[in-house]
């Protein structure tokens, strides 16, 4: 990040671009001017991505923090900027500001069982946390990945998820909201999977990322199995224009999502979470 002017993007080049699902795609970026240090970041942090002449959007980083030589973003094409982003080809240039925000407490979680609950694109900001845990897999107990999507076609990174199960002993449970008959897996909301896992609740950390309603009901289920709010972390989304606490858009009660979040320990936002229009 530009140390003097945090509003100034740096130009990056697209190394690879891949479509994950019908409307989700992944970009792999590198600094235009080389830059040996790569792009160090912490899992859960985000960047502001700029498309020339179009605009800028906050997108979480979804690559491997232990391999910072390439910068990876997975995003859904839903708005003007992201729709243009997904049309960029290898060699094309775009702007990047970041990394910004707080991260999943991967190191503090060592020695614990881990429960990751995500919905849809919510897996993207959690993938760096998984990668970092894989690098020191022996330091963690069980790792559960509970993952839900709208349909089988909306499931992200499924090739990788299959590998993780065996290579890193990840207990994976996948579910979809609706599917055709050829789907052999679970159907239903992801929150229902929480009650079916077996962990030691007082030595468990839960990381949740998805729509707020999903995170809210995940907390209800976690309470049922004994995981306390101060062992639960969630990632919040709000409108952002600056990412450095100046523009005011991302305020959430006393917090700025851009700098106090996006990752929050749940007990710190519990009193406002789920309230309408905060």
């Amino acid at each position, binding site marked *: 990040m530009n140390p003097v002017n945090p509003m100034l993007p740096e130009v990056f080049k697209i190394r690879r671009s891949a479509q994950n699902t019908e409307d989700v795609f992944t970009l792999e970026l590198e600094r235009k001017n080389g830059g040996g240090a790569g792009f160090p970041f912490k899992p859960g942090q985000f960047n502001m991505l700029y498309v*020339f*002449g179009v605009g800028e959007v906050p997108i979480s980083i979804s690559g491997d923090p232990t391999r910072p030589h390439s910068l990876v973003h997975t995003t859904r094409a839903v708005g003007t900027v992201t729709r243009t982003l997904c049309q960029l080809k290898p060699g094309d*240039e775009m702007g990047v500001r970041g990394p910004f925000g707080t991260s999943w407490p991967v190191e503090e979680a060592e020695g614990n069982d881990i429960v990751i609950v995500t919905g849809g694109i919510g897996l993207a900001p959690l993938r760096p946390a998984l990668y970092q845990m894989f690098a020191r897999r022996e330091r963690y107990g069980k790792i559960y990945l509970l993952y839900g999507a709208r349909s089988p076609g909306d499931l992200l990174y499924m090739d990788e998820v299959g590998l993780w199960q065996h290579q890193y002993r990840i207990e994976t449970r996948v579910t979809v909201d609706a599917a055709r008959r050829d789907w052999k897996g679970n159907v239903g909301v992801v929150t229902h999977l929480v009650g079916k896992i077996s962990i030691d609740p007082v030595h468990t950390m839960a990381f949740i990322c998805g729509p707020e309603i999903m995170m809210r009901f995940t907390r209800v289920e976690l309470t049922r199995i004994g995981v306390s709010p101060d062992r639960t972390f969630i990632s919040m989304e*709000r409108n952002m224009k*600056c990412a450095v*606490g100046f523009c005011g858009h991302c305020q959430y009660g006393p917090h700025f999502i851009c*700098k106090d979040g996006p990752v929050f320990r749940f007990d710190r936002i519990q009193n406002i979470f789920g309230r309408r229009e905060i």
Partner: protein
Amino acid sequence: MDATRRGIQTEIVLAATDLDRLLLALKETGYRVYGPTVEDQAIVYGELDTAADLPRGWTDEQDGGIYRLKKRDDAAFFGFAVGPHSWKKYLFPPEVKLWSAHAKAKGFEIEEETANPQKMAFLGVRACELAALGIQDRVFLQGSFVDPVYRSRRDGLFVVAVNCSVAGGTCFCVSMNTGPKAESGFDLSLTEVLKNGDHYFLVSAGSEPGREMLARLPQRPAETEHRQSAAAVVENTAAHMGRTLNTEGLPSLLAGNLDHPRWDEVAKRCLTCANCTMVCPTCFCSTVEDVTDLSGDHAERWRKWDSCFTMEFSYIAQGSLRSSARSRYRQWMTHKLSTWHDQFGSSGCVGCGRCITWCPEGIDITEEAKAIREAPQKTGGKP
């Protein structure tokens, strides 16, 4: 060594007829001077050439949704409260270019906007406005990031404060502990005294550049009598505040009353016009706008003032998160009086009263806070 002991005065008396000499001294030292002036039937801030540009002989009548200029029966230079402008328009400009980008044969390059504004002097900064300056300093300069736009304008700023001789109808600086006397954060402070046919300013220096400026002015030594008269001016203003706000435990009172029925009541009146945020000297929200020229080869990013009262402000893919007027007024008021403490260690309100005066409905922040205090509904922590 103390400045007075070196023989440099830190407090002098300047004849009202010599006020022009202060403007001259500022300009000679390389400052562009900005201050209050009459325009469009209001006292606004603009560039000053001479003391004749000041609203001499004018005062302002203010109440909820009401602002009128009136002739005074004397020739006071600063016999009014504050108008719709605040100094933030110079340090945090309403529109500013942040950078531009130019297409290249392959890709594009980004060019930083390196504005080098001329040094500014603000003449006529009220105590509440000094407090607001301090608050915006905390927002833009004292966090983990520094805003280069604000920094370049704030560095080298010369502040001439004016202690208030008139309390406006919507003023409540005494409640907010920010005025009416400027205590620190200025280079020079003036108290205007009109007494027994005598018209002068008691001028105090609050910084080294202030002391140097003082030495350039024609002066009489400040006697006890001058100091007493100046103190009486400020005391009189303090005793005539148009509004009061009880700040005792206010942050937690509001945080605990997010579902109070009063928010519904105020929402019936609030037009969500954003006037209060535009006139507020501490409101700092902004948005960015990317513009391109017709060729599509040149793009610019501009930063513009924004307001939490618009629907776009909280817009994400699912829609606007604060779609009701109730939630937008609540966001503004609880930010100002409650969550600002969590974020920046002080209230976001300085008691200048602008939001009350310039609200087309005359919605009064002090009245809203009072209504909740008088009938609190402890809503607790659960949704």
